[in-house]
């Protein structure tokens, strides 16, 4: 049985990738306060690399990655 993942907000990106993927994440993170978390679901095969790079550039933290059959989930924490 899957363990529930707790986050302050969620974002399902569907098939979005590349620039749209990080743009949607940026807009979602703008709504959060520092320290709050965002759970991102993405199907784009390059999402893991792009989200990790985006976090490194923007001072946010990629706390954890979860994989299922097709989608991946990423737990991000907003930086201070």
């Amino acid at each position: 049985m899957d363990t529930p993942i707790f986050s302050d907000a969620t974002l399902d990106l569907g098939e979005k990738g590349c620039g749209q993927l990080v743009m949607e994440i940026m807009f979602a993170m703008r709504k959060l306060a520092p320290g709050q978390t965002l759970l991102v679901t993405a199907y784009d095969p390059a999402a893991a690399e792009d989200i990790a790079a985006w976090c490194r550039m923007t001072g946010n933290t990629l706390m954890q990655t979860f994989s299922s059959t097709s989608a991946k989930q990423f737990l991000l924490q907003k930086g201070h």
Partner: protein
Amino acid sequence: MLNNFCVNLTHSIDDADRATVGMVVANAAVASGKNTIVFLTSEGVRLAIKGVADGIHEEGLTPMAELVKNYLAAGGVFWVCPPCFNKRRYKEADLIEGATLAGGAKLVEFLSNDAASVSY
């Protein structure tokens, strides 16, 4: 890490695929916190004209109007090459919000200040 990023975009309605991909990368740059400009040259200048983006939608890619809207909302700007703009007989009143005429010297200054650049 460099914080200035330029996308030199030379296409619009003449090559929707290339123009769209250029704007996708510009979206990635501005969403990643980079001080981002899209420098529009040649046929690319048409992208800064009111209503043009609405007519560009390459199959399988995000509609251009959505890319432009998000890019501007995130803080991106368009610099439009004056000779390319004038050659096509546009007027400044034709420009979308967020687009300004900016020539070669301004671009060179921007790129000389620790900027990265890609061209489409």
